């Protein structure tokens, strides 16, 4: 029999036993016992953010860059509601996260007590699961279950709501090594017969295509994907969430697909005869018009979540399982067949792809002294060899980062793909930098997104997080402006930011370095200078072309073969 501990101490011990090193949080009345317990230990380091939304995005960035669950601790009421955006962001992108929320004492629940909300109710639609702890005896096992659910199967955020009295009650502490839940048993191993059928279908393909996504990154399956793709010699495209799982500099890579994907990737999707979809969910930004999606293809779909399969697109061979397991098995099957990889020089399908590539769909004007945003990303890519951790906010700059930064490794590209959360970039970068103190971490942002979580610059100073913020400042909510230009007859309703702060002074007032760049010829030097400041946060306010649009583009309701190309692309080839 061990000594009895208070709930708050049990919570901290459980986190330490779970291997948690950092939690992101903000104190308040309902969690004061827990903060007292934090004060008395040093196994878990608490990072004090400036707003609870920042805590969730930081934990999210931490999780995306490491694969471990990010952990958040906030108080009841507004502390919990401020987390909702960050929880929903993680939910949409299947990011493992455990969010501990304080709750008013048990006897006050339902009384409209001070700082009371039904947090389990509010978060229910945007979590993988949530718990309310009712007895201190249940606390340790609930924490174990929360991490188990958050990190296995298709990962996701789990909320644990803890009434204040539970954190004061005492019981003996023991932390289970494993946990069994009869109602939760994700299928990891793929069905042998289905995998065999899939391999046969792939080998018979004339115009095959690999479409891979975030599931490959989440499952740490990049090596299996690389082996699979190279052994077959097939073309591969990735979703926004899947970038980096296959090296961008590999000639087999047709880069991103979808609304702002490459011409060659989208055309290959439209013309392929066998499509293998790996760890993807056929999102509407990827598929375009479903009526016209891959009209000639038989489709194989690998996913750990059965509900992702046949949700939007009917498939011929569904395979439920983890990407690592299924691709590992299929790689073995392919090896035993002694299949000759498709020849990139001679094969007709690759020759067709080469023609689409020659269209040069990512063309932009490289001659202007007004800074083109694409150029900034290209320079950053060169200076960091495609190896930096890049977080982004949401909008045009996010698409340019995805298009022009050549991610060669997984977990380097950290962005809110599903929910599209502006304000994500800076706090996410904090989480990434904390997890990787010696790596270069850049946040590619825009002036509109940047100010949405700007308060976290203060957190960055407190913990010495030298992130590099590259803000592509075009004075507009660029993506909104682009859609207004295309679809609303240039009525730029509320997309121009009439009053902006002086970002250099703003950075300085937070104790950081600010830089303004206004000419193309200054971009490279300024980036070098910023990247060289290893121990300082640098906010680069880069004044870019206000009229630049993201190309190529598939408009809503159009198919993959109906892309609009930028001026200067070789249209006659298309």
């Amino acid at each position, binding site marked *: 029999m061990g000594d009895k501990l208070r709930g708050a101490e049990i919570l901290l011990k459980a986190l330490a036993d779970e291997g948690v090193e950092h939690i992101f949080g903000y104190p308040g009345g309902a969690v004061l016992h827990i903060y007292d317990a934090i004060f008395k230990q040093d196994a878990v380091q608490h990072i004090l953010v400036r707003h609870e939304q920042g805590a969730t995005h930081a934990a999210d960035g931490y999780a995306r860059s490491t694969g471990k669950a990010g952990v958040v601790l906030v108080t009841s009421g507004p502390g919990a509601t401020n987390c909702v955006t960050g929880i929903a962001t993680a939910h949409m992108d299947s990011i493992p996260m455990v969010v501990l929320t304080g709750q008013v004492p048990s006897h006050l629940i339902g009384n409209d007590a001070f700082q009371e909300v039904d947090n389990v*109710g509010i978060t229910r*639609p945007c979590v993988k699961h949530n718990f309310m702890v009712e007895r201190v005896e249940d606390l340790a096992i609930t924490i174990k279950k929360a991490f188990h659910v958050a990190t296995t199967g298709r990962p996701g955020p789990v909320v644990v709501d803890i009434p204040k009295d539970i954190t004061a009650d005492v019981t003996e502490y023991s932390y289970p090594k494993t946990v069994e839940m*009869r109602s939760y048993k994700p299928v990891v191993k793929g069905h042998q017969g289905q995998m065999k059928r899939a391999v046969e279908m792939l080998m018979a393909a004339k115009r095959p295509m690999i479409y891979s996504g975030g599931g490959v990154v989440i499952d740490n399956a990049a090596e299996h994907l690389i082996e699979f793709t190279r052994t077959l010699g097939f073309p591969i495209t990735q979703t926004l969430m899947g970038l980096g799982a296959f090296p961008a500099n590999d000639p087999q890579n047709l880069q991103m697909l979808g609304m702002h994907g490459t011409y060659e990737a989208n055309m290959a999707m439209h013309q392929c005869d066998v499509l293998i979809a790996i760890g993807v969910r056929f999102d509407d930004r990827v598929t375009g018009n479903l009526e016209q999606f891959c009209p000639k293809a038989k489709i194989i779909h690998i996913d750990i979540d*059965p*509900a992702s399969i046949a949700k939007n697109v009917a498939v011929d061979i569904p395979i439920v399982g983890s990407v690592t397991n299924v691709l590992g098995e299929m790689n073995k099957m392919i090896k035993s067949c002694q299949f000759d990889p498709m020849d990139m020089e001679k094969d007709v399908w690759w020759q067709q792809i080469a023609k689409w590539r020659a269209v040069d769909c990512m063309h932009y004007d490289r001659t202007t002294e007004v800074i083109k945003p694409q150029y900034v990303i290209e320079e950053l890519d060169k200076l960091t060899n495609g190896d930096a951790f890049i977080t982004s906010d949401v909008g045009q700059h996010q698409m340019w980062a995805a298009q022009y930064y050549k991610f060669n490794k997984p977990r380097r590209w950290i962005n809110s793909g599903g929910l599209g959360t502006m304000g994500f970039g800076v706090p996410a970068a904090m989480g990434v930098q904390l997890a990787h103190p010696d790596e270069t971490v850049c946040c590619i942002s825009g002036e509109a997104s940047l100010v949405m979580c700007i308060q976290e610059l203060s957190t960055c100073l407190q913990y010495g997080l030298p992130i590099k913020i590259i803000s592509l400042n075009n004075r507009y909510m660029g993506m909104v402006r682009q859609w207004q230009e295309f679809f609303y007859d240039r009525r730029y309703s509320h997309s121009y930011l009439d009053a902006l702060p002086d970002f250099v002074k703003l950075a300085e007032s937070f104790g950081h370095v600010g830089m303004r760049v206004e000419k193309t010829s200054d971009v490279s030097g300024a980036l070098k200078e910023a990247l060289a400041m290893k121990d300082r946060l640098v906010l680069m306010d880069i004044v870019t072309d206000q009229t630049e649009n993201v190309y190529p583009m598939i408009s809503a309701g159009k198919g993959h073969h109906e892309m609009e190309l930028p001026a200067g692309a070789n249209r006659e080839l298309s």
Partner: protein
Amino acid sequence: MQRHIISILLENEAGALSRVAGLFSARAYNIESLTVAPTEDPTMSRMTLVTNGTAETVEQIQKQLNKLIDVIKLADLNEVRHIERELMLVKTKASGDSREEVKRLVDIFRGRIIDVTDATYTIEITGTGKKLDALLEALDKKEIIEVVRTGVTGIARGENALHL
């Protein structure tokens, strides 16, 4: 569009019902009826849910239900031979000539009169939803005071069963 009866075993925990109900509203699925109560094992509840949808929609409903952490197991009763039952209580005016007429109708439908006043009968009847509808059709609408239906519950015929 087809009507499906989905039987679900779920953890008997606070919030489990709202997770199921929330799923249906969040994803705009139809619920025709829903019944739930604990089973012989008090840690588990059995839910019977009637929904309408195309084959694809109902497949997706089942997958999404299975994804809920509180759902232990489920089955689509439409895929097997099954029995469906619903309980209805009807309070109706019954005086004068109609008093005997209502009693005869209840007998025909194999219902029972379970409460009586000088002026009313309270009828209990079980059966499929259609049978219950038919009794309501047969009764004089002007005389009906109150109708309570439980919603459908069901079970597979023969050896088939939904259990752990």
